[in-house]
């Protein structure tokens, strides 16, 4: 195997940082479900999904520290950056809400990630290609989990149908940001390291639409307002609270290990 390139490429690092931050922040949110799921079995399922995402984040953030020339570790990046330096989309930082909301969010996010990683297996960056190959099997399962639940809640009782419909509408304003191209992703697509987020939209939407149809739900209307700015470090109100909870131990006791 060829040695891993250590040349500084800050746009590539920015691109991978966005992917890593998506996984890291959503892992943190999903961890909140432990002891809050409808049954202990679902606590386990969502914790497993979160741990898969955390593993992806670790590998991706580690690569960022190599590519941006700073040599920062995964922990440096996770615990010692401030809100404006995080590049995750708004979808993953939104507060934990009802179970239906979580399944709608997971359906969109896992389906998006599945298309993303399937494409990134051909990345010119061997680390990124390796992470994508392993993660693809994980997100395949995440997508299946969300799909199974949306089908059951949508095609379940009147109450579950209505709640699932509301949840789809609540998630809708955060979907478009997943597929927005920016300077970092354009450069990454040009060099063959990454893919244009907009290129993932048709396949992602097709899967979600299939699930929504089969679940006897209506496709939610496009909202007039929609989230934007996450990839530029502009976040919504819940992000600060999430970071405080995620980072405060590491910042209170720098260098602590266990």
């Amino acid at each position: 195997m060829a040695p891993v390139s250590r040349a500084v490429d800050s746009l590539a690092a920015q691109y991978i940082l966005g992917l890593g931050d998506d996984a890291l922040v959503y892992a943190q949110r999903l961890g909140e479900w432990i002891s809050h799921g409808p049954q202990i079995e679902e606590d386990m399922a969502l914790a497993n999904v979160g741990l898969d995402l955390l593993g992806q984040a670790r590998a991706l953030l580690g690569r960022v520290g190599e590519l941006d020339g700073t040599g920062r570790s995964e922990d440096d990046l996770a615990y010692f950056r401030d809100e404006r330096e995080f590049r995750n989309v708004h979808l993953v930082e939104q507060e934990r809400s009802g179970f239906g909301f979580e399944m709608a969010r997971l359906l969109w996010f896992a389906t998006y990630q599945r298309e993303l990683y399937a494409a990134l297996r051909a990345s010119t960056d061997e680390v990124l290609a390796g992470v994508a190959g392993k993660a693809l099997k994980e997100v395949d399962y995440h997508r299946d989990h969300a799909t199974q639940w949306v089908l059951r809640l949508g095609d379940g009782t009147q109450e579950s149908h209505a709640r699932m419909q509301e949840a789809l509408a609540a998630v809708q304003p955060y979907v478009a940001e997943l597929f927005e191209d920016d300077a970092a992703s354009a450069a990454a697509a040009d060099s063959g390291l990454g893919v244009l987020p907009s290129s993932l939209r048709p396949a992602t939407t097709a899967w979600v639409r299939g699930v929504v149809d089969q679940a006897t739900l209506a496709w939610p209307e496009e909202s007039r307002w929609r989230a934007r700015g996450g990839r530029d470090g502009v976040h919504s109100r819940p992000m600060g609270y999430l970071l405080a909870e995620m980072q405060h131990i590491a910042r209170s006791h720098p260098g602590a290990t266990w």
Partner: protein
Amino acid sequence: MSTETGQPERSWPLWEVFVRGKRGLSHVHVGSLHAPDAVMALRNARDVYTRRQEGVSIWVARASDITASSPDERDAFFDPAADKVYRHPTFYDVPEDVEYL
């Protein structure tokens, strides 16, 4: 979902989980869990019982579908076999030239 009495079921039904390990020949009972239906029970079993690569195959069965012997019947069921040692194949000599036995 409702029970036979017509009351809505407050909790998901119980499922028994059987896992076959990598080197195992048969599925072994590993525990039980709750799930709304068989498809979700398989997935829950994957999440609860195979997190550490314990298995390559899972069976689930509704706990209520399993007919089990009763502890009250134990004497009648199992004790009569206790003094019938002749049912064990230990009372004949195996010729030396019989292979693979």
